[in-house]
């Protein structure tokens, strides 16, 4: 009795009975759980100050790799205008957003992108751990990592170091770009 992972046996995989949405949910949930576990174990051993530094560094460097994979898959070379940016954002979230993530985004005007966390799983998780007062947001490091890697110039407003959800009960950032009209 032998089962191999090679080539033509792919069609036999049991998990093919799951649809794309189910697979996506499992993978993203596991990814975020895994990230949460790193945070939890790191904070228990290294303290919140070092953990913030490690968490933000890991998110930012991952985001650069992530956006390159997505860009390559979409066959994009350079984002040259605001429309292309909007299409890319739509494509990114088609891949990386799971149902349990409650956020939204909009384009209030040309060259403006507003991203709102309606409910934040990072805030919920870090609050449960008891470190929310010292927590420095890692969520927006991911977006900034994408835009930096894409070579897009932006201004971000407001500038927040800690957790906006904790400080103001709402969480959003507005990115302003300078794409040509």
């Amino acid at each position: 009795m032998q089962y191999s992972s090679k080539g033509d046996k792919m069609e036999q995989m049991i998990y093919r009975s799951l649809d794309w949405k189910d697979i996506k949910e499992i993978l993203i949930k596991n990814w975020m759980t895994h990230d949460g576990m790193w945070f939890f174990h790191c904070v228990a051993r290294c303290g919140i100050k070092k953990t913030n530094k490690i968490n933000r560094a890991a998110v930012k460097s991952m985001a650069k790799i992530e956006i390159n994979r997505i860009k390559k898959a979409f066959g994009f070379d350079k984002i040259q205008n605001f429309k292309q940016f909007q299409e890319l954002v739509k494509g990114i979230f088609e891949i990386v957003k799971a149902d349990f993530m409650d956020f939204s985004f909009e384009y209030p005007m040309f060259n403006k992108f507003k991203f709102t966390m309606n409910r934040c799983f990072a805030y919920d998780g870090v609050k449960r751990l008891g470190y929310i007062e010292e927590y420095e947001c890692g969520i927006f490091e991911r977006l900034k990592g994408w835009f930096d890697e894409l070579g897009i110039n932006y201004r971000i407003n407001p500038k927040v170091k800690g957790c906006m959800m904790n400080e103001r009960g709402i969480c959003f950032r507005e990115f302003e770009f300078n794409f040509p009209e």
Partner: protein
Amino acid sequence: MIERVNLINFLSQESKIEILRKNWMSHDARAQMAIVREFGWKKGNKLNKMIISEMGKVMMFRLINALNLPKVSNINDIYNICITAMEFYYPPPSMSYRFEYVSENELLGVVEKCAIIEQVKKLKVKDYYECGCFAMRSGWYKALGLDVKEECLSCIKDGASQCNIAVKVIKWNK
């Protein structure tokens, strides 16, 4: 003139899933390397194994729940759930593996190609990195309610052509 493109249509669902898997693994690797930079390899390896063991349990629970699989009670069941978990989380071609039947309580896991070790070698850290796969599968077995003992007979990281892992079920979930 602005040109409208619909990027989403360019990608198959399989490609989207592949991106997610890879990015999850990249994030994990970067978290470990960020720890290593701050505290060294000893702590980095220890934390990685502790975390992936807990994570392994979650990975297996989510998979068996999604597939609505019954309890694992014989060697055929464990063989099927393990190969399914491998294919779900670590599909070919970046990984290549198989399981061989040894006895009613034993399998031999053979890994011919390991994407993680290839990355480790590329980063030139193979002398420091300790494999996390045993810790991960210990989580799988916990989720399955099995008492399993694994032994590494050979490892690609140490120069072997393939990893050979003896998997012995000590206690079944009856």
